[in-house]
């Protein structure tokens, strides 16, 4: 009787340990979802995330018989009291055509401000066909006190952009990250 009792307890302990390991693993899995999500977004353009690095290849060709309308909108995130606008509100481009647009941000305050702009494309499907060779969003931009900064962005559309995408919106939200940068001098993860 007592031997049998013991073995049940041993089995209980063994099952308990297995289940605890599983629970801890699932806690880890929650954090694993973060890089996994970012990879999925990078591959599929889910959520309109554009590439965070500059495109180095030149476009193969210009598709002159197609035009795609690209609209630009800007939003001011927390701590931004100055100006953040795009000079161009909408532009019609041929896929493969290299285009330059200007954004302006100002810092009316009396101390330097570090900003980070975050791009987002709607519909998200278009994100991976947007190649930027230069963008103020790749790095943090420092605005000196009272400065109004011209922030150029150069892009082209992939010549393979699907036919049904003939218009999309690129939105930038600018954030004041001065404190964040001061708080920890290591670089802020930017996607």
């Amino acid at each position, binding site marked *: 009787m007592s031997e049998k009792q013991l073995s*049940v307890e041993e*089995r*209980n302990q063994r*099952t*308990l340990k297995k*289940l*605890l390991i*599983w*629970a*801890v*693993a*699932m*806690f*880890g*899995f*929650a*954090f694993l*979802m*973060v890089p996994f*999500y970012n990879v999925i*977004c990078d591959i*599929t*353009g*889910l*959520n*309109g*995330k554009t590439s965070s690095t500059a495109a180095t290849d030149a476009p193969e060709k210009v598709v002159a018989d197609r035009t795609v309308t690209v609209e630009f909108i800007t939003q001011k*995130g*927390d701590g931004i009291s100055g100006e953040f606008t795009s000079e161009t509100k909408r532009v019609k481009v041929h896929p493969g055509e290299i285009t330059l647009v200007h954004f302006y941000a100002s810092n009316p305050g009396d101390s330097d401000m570090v900003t*980070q702009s*975050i791009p987002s494309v*709607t*519909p*998200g*499907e278009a994100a991976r066909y947007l190649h930027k060779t230069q963008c103020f969003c790749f790095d943090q931009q420092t605005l000196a006190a009272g400065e109004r900064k011209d922030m150029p962005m150069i892009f082209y559309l992939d010549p393979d952009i699907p036919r049904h995408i003939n218009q999309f919106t690129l939105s930038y*939200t600018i*954030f*004041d*990250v001065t404190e*964040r940068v001061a*708080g*920890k001098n290591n670089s*802020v*993860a*930017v*996607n």
Partner: protein
Amino acid sequence: MSTAAATHDDHHDHHHAPTGLKRWLFSTNHKDIGTLYLWFSFAMFLAGGFMAMVIRAELLEPGMQFVDPEFFNQMTTVHGLVMVFGAVMPATVGLANWMIPLMIGAPDMALPRMNNWSFWILPFAFAILISSVIMSAFGDGNPSAPNFGWTFYAPLSTKYGPDSTDLFILSVHMMGISSIMGAINVVVTVFNMRAPGMTLMKMPLFVWTWLITAFLLIAVIPVLAGAVTMMLTDRHFGTSFFDAAGGGDPVLFQHVFWFFGHPEVYIMILPSFGIVSAIIPAFARKPLFGYASMVYATASIALLSFVVWAHHMFTVGMPLAGTLFFMYMTMLISVPTGVKVFNWVATMWRGSMSFELPMKWAIAFVILFTCGGLSGLMLAITPVDFQYHDTYFVVAHFHYVLVTGAIFSIFAAAYYWLPKWSGVMPNKLLGELHFWNSLISANLLFFPMHFVGLAGMPRRYADYALQFADYNFWISIGGFWFGLSQVLFLAVAVLCAMKKGEKAPAKPWDGAEGLEWEVPSPAPFHTFDTPPVVK
């Protein structure tokens, strides 16, 4: 008949059962802990219900009458949290504690001391959460209680969350630890403590559905813990999981949350399926139709619950392939659910039915849960979801599956097993009044919500456009009526606890089957010290 329970084992720890407060504080007895869980969940049901009354009072008429919109938001948030984590989940854990050892012929839960701990964490978790509401109510809304909805989407709960968000995070962690321990206990008990001859495919369906629920809990509650941990570090330790300024993504929060949240929905409803599968055969006096298919259907629902989470967030903007995938997967869930509903109906078909209280609740469950399931199917259709999203249609849907679904089945379970728990039959007159009042008022409360939702009334607002006034008036009347009806159940439960009523025989329902009816009523403190023989 096993009366082994009455004979004392002299090497048993509980030779001298402690009395008074100590009995409950230090209890490792599955029946005592089950009772604690059930009373606690009923107290939370009343607390969450009181918050719902505040919501419905404010919505009785258009315009602002009783509370300011900020406090209204806190009410919707904490009502949801208390009902999900405080009422429904602990109630089913309480039922599991009481019934699983009795149903599989085990002397107790496998890990009794952990069982004690997993219950006693809960009152503290909810004291922390509800303290924020009390501070808010008596401090004129300052400091604010959590006000971001029970789904606590970032950045509402991170950047814009009130200070009490940290209390909320701590309390969710504690509830999570409690749930995981409870679930582990169920799995270990079912795997290792079954009486000889009780094979897996002989287990009552309530045990099966709880076993699968327990696996769901162990899989997704840690993900919820991960989500609130990320919130905590975003708020205080400079990380940017959900903060776009630092390269994070608020939409990620929704993915992590609903990866937990959808299985959570089934965590709340699967035990109900088990309860109803026990009650309907008992009062139809026929064995359950399609036992094996019920087991497989439950497992299928559980597996599918991991691949449907994004149907809660169709409107965030997903690729077409993504929305199609989640839409079809969601619709696929109606297949195993339909199997269950048809099996219950087939069990009743040509049965010698009688309509005692548990059966009334169970039949109401089958009909009204199906109603909630159908509105769920409508919501699954991506293009129309864009119209229904975040309207009262959604509120109607999930209250049909959770109130007239989960909670009705918990009442069914209470009326079915109260004779076993207390030794007396629940008061018939009060029970009938409770049932009919709840049935009519719940439908008056929730059915018109479909209409105002389809007409465009958004959820979680303290006010509404004038054309919704008449419907909202009646919804509120239904709400107060439903709330008051639950006091009747309090009376039923207190009468049973005081042993006032007709004495219950060991098996009060002549068609009932299962090992739990082979022990006397009330079930003695120790049962099945010697395992029963299962044929």
